[in-house]
């Protein structure tokens, strides 16, 4: 009987692989399952016992005005950040897509906000935007305004400020993705379009845009996922205020869990957020992929 050498070789590596799978099970799969189970109870860490409440927590989702407010805010930030970051990212990529050292340095600089933690970025911007912050100081020094502007103090301006800061972070990523996409466009295509008498706008529409379609998918989806889990920037910049107007759903979830100690309801929000993220990310990916194939 001849032994197949392939059999024996699986051993040895398997224990390490299984250790990794067990850890992943414990720290990612089990928590998701646990969230589902907890979402069916009224669990509160300050009480000893918790009761099964069925789908009550999920029913509460639909009547929770604060959750709706957080969803509205999240939707605004997601849409604005995705649009701004991708538009400016593409413009930056086109502006900086040259080979000399100058442009290499500029591309390096534009990516730096991506490397900094959200907490640091938010503190930098807070010191700029706060009531007696550096922007108001500068504006007053120049005599442009008489009284300081409340950049973080009114719901509208605070929302605008959050969108600006998050876009500022994600633009670096979009720029890198689009730069790589542009560099993958064969120069012959432009040459051919030019020979056919296409204008600059026409070349962009018919050559650049179709060729960078995969880049659009990547950049848009990553902007979406980043914005859905937004927490640190809000925590530092506005703390969710003023009047809870800048609470993202992820931020609201943490408040319900750790401030209100409503673990049961917080878990229902968590599962809802997970499903929402998955549906939006998957939906947008397949939508853009289909568009990629068409153009």
């Amino acid at each position, binding site marked *: 009987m001849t032994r197949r*050498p392939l059999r*024996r*070789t*699986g*051993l*040895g*590596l398997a224990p*390490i*692989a299984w250790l*990794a*799978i067990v*850890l*992943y*099970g*414990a*720290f*990612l*799969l*089990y*928590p*998701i399952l646990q969230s589902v189970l*907890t979402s069916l109870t009224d669990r509160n860490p300050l009480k000893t016992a918790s009761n099964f409440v069925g789908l009550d927590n999920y029913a509460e989702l639909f009547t929770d005005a604060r959750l709706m407010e957080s969803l509205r805010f999240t939707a605004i930030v997601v849409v604005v950040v995705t649009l701004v970051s991708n538009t400016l990212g593409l413009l*930056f990529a086109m*502006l900086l897509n040259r080979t000399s050292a100058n442009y290499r340095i*500029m591309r*390096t*600089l*534009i*990516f*730096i*906000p991506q*490397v900094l*933690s*959200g*907490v*640091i970025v938010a*503190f*930098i911007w807070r*010191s*700029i935007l706060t009531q*007696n912050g*550096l922007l108001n100081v500068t504006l007053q*020094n120049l005599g442009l305004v008489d009284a300081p502007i409340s950049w973080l103090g009114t719901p509208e301006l605070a929302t605008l400020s959050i969108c600006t800061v998050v876009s500022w972070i994600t633009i670096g*990523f979009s720029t*890198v*993705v689009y730069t790589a996409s542009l560099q993958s466009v064969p120069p012959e295509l432009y040459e051919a379009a030019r020979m056919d008498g296409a204008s600059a706008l026409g070349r962009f529409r018919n050559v650049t845009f179709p060729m960078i379609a995969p880049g659009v998918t*990547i950049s848009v989806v990553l902007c979406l996922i980043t914005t*859905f*889990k937004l*927490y*640190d920037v809000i*925590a*530092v910049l506005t703390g969710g205020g003023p009047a809870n107007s800048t609470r993202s759903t*992820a931020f609201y*979830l*943490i408040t319900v*869990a750790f401030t209100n100690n409503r673990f049961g309801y917080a878990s229902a929000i*968590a599962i809802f*957020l997970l499903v929402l*993220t998955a549906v939006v990310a998957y939906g947008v990916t397949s939508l853009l992929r289909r568009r990629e194939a068409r153009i």
Partner: protein
Amino acid sequence: MRRSPGLRRLGRAGHLVIAWFITFAFVLPIYIALSSAFKSQEQILANPLGLPAPFTFDNILTALTRPDSLVVNGLLNSVLVTALSVVILIPLSSALSFWISERRPLLKGILLGVFALGLMVPPQVVLLPIVQLLHAIGLANSYPGLILSNVGGGYLSFAVFVYVGFLRSVPREVIEAARVDGASDLRIWWTVVLPLVRPATATVGIFLGLWVWNDFLNPLFILGPLQGQTITTGIYVALGGYSADYGQLFGIMFLAAIIPVVGYLVSQREFIHGLMSGASK
């Protein structure tokens, strides 16, 4: 329609000027943070955009000699947590990925599907159960608890996708040849696969290192306020209240940001390359 060489040179110079102007406007907040770290409070308020002249190291020294040692301890804790998380994650994920890529297509597909989940789950969703789990196994508010949850969570998914993607480009013959020579899979992983996937290891190490270093939510809630801080949560605790001491604020932030930024500048080529290869999958 051909432009004269002179006109073209002028156009190029104009383009360069515009590009620098826009880039500078974009990174202005970084310039403000960097220059303010070396300016006194009075200098910052008098002219936020001015150069740090005269130059002062007071902010940095004050941050380093705080009576609560928040910055020094935070930096040490961050180095410890980041280094241990990454040093455990790299062998674990590369071995797992090699093992996965040797499975039958069906099992491989299922495993990759399960690991894809980790790429997408918002950390807030799993945070609460993780905190409870760590309580149950006696690792609540501890560094081992934080490191374990780093190792088992979404970071592992990212590493698996980078490695499995990279392993597709490794020729089968190399591994089969080692197998014919009688090497075990463990040995093949160590002596053949790991050297081959070094570019993937660079990507995994750089990105996971950066993410763990910058992580805010997990250290904040897993360590808790009493067990010390990483530098990222430490900044939040130290500067959480609305203090107007800008010199101090920017001094602390300079110290917190310098390691990741220098790391990025040094490993820039691998960084961008990794970003692109990771993103295109």
